[in-house]
């Protein structure tokens, strides 16, 4: 296992270009944040509404830096067993039975051999640390706001030391810190102590130009006219007073759906039919469908 250090782009421009090659159109402010996170070797903390490309940046970054992506999806009750490591108890039990049948080992030795790497289930955080022996991976800690405060406390420790101690095996250290990307949808406030250690970036909804570029890059089947109309419509829709606004991923899904339906222009009928791709809330759909869609469409086509 030889260690190959990451080639970090030498400037913000170079980074922006590298992200662009992976079809990710990053705003300058975001590119600066990513660049600083790489240079300062600090976690990148991304906040923003759902569907603005927070998770995507981690994937793209891994591709741009030519390294692997390790993802930890957070949820309430996430514990060390799911995030770091766990012993494979069923296999260990099976092993005991095998030993008993063979009867050629005394139990003390057996117990010792039961706690080796063979029986260890490695979860994302441990995997990320091990991976650094070859090359620092991108570690994506997705939707940290879903995890509970207890896990946040553990993460705080993990992010400052980048080591994991397994009582039966010893301490495993990272050769170099992995590139950590933490995302949050702000369903609750993440503790300041954690955010303070990170480079923070708020990803807003994109403006028309940026979203249009994303649509044309990601949905090549869409004609220029359709892409413009789709983008303009979604931009207008976001200004409507709704429970849940459409994110970029919704825009892309919608554009792809319209292409699949062989549409080249928007009309009232097709919007009403496919509104479920943009809005995922029945009350929102009811509020917009019909008249308001018509008004928005008129503005888009004007």
């Amino acid at each position, binding site marked *: 296992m030889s260690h190959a250090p990451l080639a970090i782009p030498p400037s913000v421009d170079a980074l922006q270009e590298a992200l662009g090659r992976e079809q990710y159109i990053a705003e300058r402010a975001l590119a600066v944040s990513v660049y600083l996170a790489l240079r300062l070797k600090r976690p990148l903390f991304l906040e923003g509404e759902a569907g603005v490309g927070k998770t995507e940046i981690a994937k793209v970054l891994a591709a741009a830096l030519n390294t692997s992506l390790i993802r930890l999806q957070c949820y309430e009750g996430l514990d060390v067993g799911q995030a770091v490591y766990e*012993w494979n108890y069923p296999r260990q039990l099976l092993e005991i039975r095998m030993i008993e049948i063979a009867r050629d080992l005394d139990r003390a030795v057996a117990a010792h051999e039961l706690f080796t790497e063979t029986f260890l289930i490695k979860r994302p955080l441990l995997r990320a640390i091990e991976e650094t022996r070859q090359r620092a991976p991108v570690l994506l800690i997705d939707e940290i706001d879903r995890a509970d405060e207890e896990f946040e406390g553990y993460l705080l420790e993990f992010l400052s030391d980048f*080591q994991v101690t397994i009582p039966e095996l010893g301490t495993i250290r990272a050769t170099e810190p992995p590139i950590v990307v933490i995302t949050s949808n702000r369903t*609750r406030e993440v503790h300041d102590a954690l955010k*303070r250690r990170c480079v923070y*970036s708020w990803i807003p909804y994109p403006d028309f130009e940026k979203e249009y570029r994303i649509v044309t890059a990601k949905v090549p089947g869409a004609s220029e006219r359709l892409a413009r109309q789709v983008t303009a419509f979604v931009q207008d829709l976001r200004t409507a007073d709704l429970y849940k606004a459409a994110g970029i991923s919704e825009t892309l899904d919608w554009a792809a759906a319209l292409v699949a339906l062989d549409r080249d222009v928007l009309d009232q009928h097709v919007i009403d039919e496919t509104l479920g791709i943009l809005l995922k809330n029945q009350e929102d759909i009811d509020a917009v469908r019909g008249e308001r869609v018509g008004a928005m469409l008129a503005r888009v086509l004007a």
Partner: protein
Amino acid sequence: MGSRGSLGSGAKEPIEPEPFEPNEPNEPHEPTLISNLLLFGRVLRAAGVHVHRERMVDAIQATEWIGVRSRADVRATLSALLVHRHEDLALFNEAFDLVFRAHGSSELKLPLFSLGERARIVMRRGAGAPQRLDVESESTESNAASAAFAIGAYSTVEVSRTKDFADFTAAELEAARRLMLRMHWHPGVRRTRRWQRATRGDIDMPRLLRTNLMRGGELIELPRRIRRQAPRPIVMLADVSGSMDRYSRMLLAFASGLTRSARQVESFVFATRLTRVSRFVSAATGYRVVSRMVRDLHDWGGGTRIGEALRTFNTTWARRVMRHGPVVLIVSDGWDRGDPQLLVRELSRLGRRCSRLIWLNPLLGSAGYEPLTRGMQAALEHIDDFMPAHNLSSLEDLATHLQRLGRPQHGDHRHT
């Protein structure tokens, strides 16, 4: 200081040699830049943005890498390192524009002193620009109304538990306020997803195997586990419009008492608009800040639009504060000048997302009150409990009621 190695205690990595040339090679920082950055940090702090000292060191280092030619880049650099809350971004931008004007490092010092002179309270709103309220410090408070609340002046006053808050004298109000701060609130519990060891409950399989493996796989211990329980969060939405004037003061005291006693409490006040006051309510002197804020709001004395306030809550705040099946308390007399249809719609939405929706109505305490206002009538079928909140006794009843709630099931406990 800013390197990662200094953060942890163990496993420090050797400090790597700098792999890159800085963007502006061999150009040491001009002292003016550093002093401007430090000044900027002070401006941010004065404006209420929490800036950690370590981050200033990072910021200075980072501006060297990024270069100072592009104003936008410097802005992005500093915001990435010095801001860690979305709510602070608007303030940051304002401060940035103030300090890093096109020219003029020499004139910088002037506006700063005026900024630092008084404590600034920034009210954060979900949508739109943050509204800034200047709050004078405690010592300069000379308002006649607040003077009546001088500390310690009325500690011997007896408070009647059944007297309506509206009939309280200033002395009684103060005494009741103190009493309320000492009340204990237990808003029921919810089952979390975390396990804890227990003497009853399910068998803890991982632990069973782990402990007994050490004994060669014989089942000697039978460890068990249950889901840990945690108190339910409380969300309080208090009407502070003109018609609630007589009760608002007590409500704020109620909110502070609640916040001190229960673990997770979010408070909002509304009249025509909705404002989050959680962080002020929880502070020791928050009661004064909030009552001043409520007075300062143009909302004060204006009409009530409960439906619209609830809509703002549902669209802007619900996703952030309605976690873990909270108990929602709406405190209002139900005098609504808004659209009753909207109220019903938003109330039913709110009701579906909480474990218990309780409407506290001070008017319910007065004899012969019937919920005849359109808003109140419309609301009744969507709320779980309709309770009075006009005197201490009724609040005690509320406390008992909350405690008795225990662990209600989602959705199937509605009564109409």
